[in-house]
C-alpha cells in the first residue's frame, strides 16, 4: 500500500537505485496502460506485450536522461516513439496489409450495435481511431491521452469530440434504419 502512495518520480528514482519492489509498483501502474496504447497503435496483442517490455527496457537504459519532472509524460513519450517506430517498420515490410478489408469482413457479421461501433471505429482515419480507442476502448483519462500523444488535455478533448463527430456521421445511416 505504501508504494501506491509514492509518486511515480520517486518510485523511478528508487528503481534506479536498484529497489526491485519499486520496479514492481511502477510496472503495476503502467504495464496495462502501455499495453492498451501499443495494442491500439499496432493492432496486435502479442506485439503490444513485447512493446511493454521494450518500453521498460528503454526507460531503464535511458534513465540518466530523465529530468525528474513528469515521469508520466516521459514514459508515454518513449512508448509513443517506440510504437510509431515499430509501426513504420511494419509498414515498410508489410505492404499487403489491408485494414479496410478486415473492417468490411467484421461489418458483414455485425450482430448488434456494439460490433457496428467497433467496426466503424476501426474504419476511422488513424488519428481518430487512435483517440477513440484510447478514450473508450482502453479507458484512459484525458491526462493520460495527452501524455501519450504529446498534446494538451484541451487538444485531446477537441480531438475526441471531432473523432466522435466523424463516428456519428459514419454511423448515422445504420442508426437511422
Amino acid at each position, binding site marked *: 500500500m505504501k508504494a501506491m502512495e509514492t509518486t511515480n518520480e520517486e518510485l523511478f528514482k528508487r528503481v534506479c537505485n536498484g529497489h526491485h519492489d519499486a520496479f514492481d509498483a511502477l*510496472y503495476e501502474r503502467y504495464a496495462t496502460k502501455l499495453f492498451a496504447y501499443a495494442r491500439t497503435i499496432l493492432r496486435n496483442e502479442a506485439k503490444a506485450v513485447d512493446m511493454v517490455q521494450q518500453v521498460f*527496457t528503454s526507460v531503464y537504459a535511458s534513465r540518466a536522461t530523465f529530468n525528474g519532472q513528469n515521469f508520466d509524460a516521459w514514459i508515454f513519450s518513449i512508448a509513443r516513439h517506440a510504437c510509431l517506430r515499430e509501426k513504420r517498420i511494419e509498414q515498410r515490410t508489410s505492404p499487403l496489409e489491408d485494414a479496410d478489408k478486415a473492417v468490411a469482413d467484421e461489418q458483414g457479421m455485425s450482430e448488434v450495435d456494439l460490433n457496428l461501433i467497433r467496426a466503424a471505429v476501426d474504419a476511422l482515419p488513424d488519428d481518430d481511431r487512435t483517440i477513440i480507442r484510447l478514450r473508450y476502448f482502453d479507458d484512459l483519462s484525458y491526462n493520460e491521452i495527452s501524455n501519450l500523444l504529446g498534446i494538451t488535455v484541451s487538444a485531446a*478533448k477537441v480531438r475526441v469530440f471531432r473523432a466522435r463527430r466523424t463516428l456519428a456521421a459514419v454511423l448515422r445511416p445504420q442508426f437511422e434504419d
Partner: protein
Amino acid sequence: MERIEELLMDMIDDGPLDESAAPIDASSVPIDAELSSELQRIHAQSPLLAQCIEHPSDHVLEALNKQRASLHTTLFRLPYSIGAAARWGGGVVAVACVLQLATSFLAPDQAFVSIARSPIQQSQPAIEQPVRHIDEGMRLMPLSPSSHTTTSTIESHIERTALLKRRNEIREQLARTTDPEARVQLERDLERVNELVK
C-alpha cells in the same frame, strides 16, 4: 471554435451514460440548431462506447506478469554483473601490482629468465607471428569523434530487435503458407527485411 468543442466534449462526458441517453442541455453553449442535433446524435452513442472497454485478457495479464519477472532479471542483473566485473578486475590489477613489486626487487637479467627451447621445439621451425598489414589508405584516415549517442544506440538497438522479430515472423509465415502467391510476397518481404538488417 476549439474552446466550444472542448466544452461540448465536457458536456458529453458529463451526460448520463445509461441506455436512455437523455438529451443534453446545449443551451448554455452558443451553437446552431444543426450542431445541437448533431451533439444529440454523438451523445446517443455514449452508452454504446462505454461498453466497448477492452480490458486485457487473462492470458495477456499472465504474459505481462511473466514479463515483469524477466525484466527483473534483465534490468537488475546488469548492474550486478558490472559490479562483479569491477571487483574481479580490481583483483587482477592487485595481483599484477604485487607481481610488479616482486620483480622490481630482482636484477634486470633475473626478472625475465629466458626459457631454453626443448629439443622437440628446436627440431621444429619457430612459429612466426602473423604480421598485420595496414592499408596505407586506412593509415591516413583521420580519426573522427564518434557520433553515436546513448539514445541513438538504444534506438538502433530497438529498431534492429524489431526487424529481427519481423524476420522471424515472416519466416514462420513462410513455413506455414502453401499459397504460391503469398509465398512470393513473403519472400520479397523477407528479402527487404534482410536488407534492412544488414
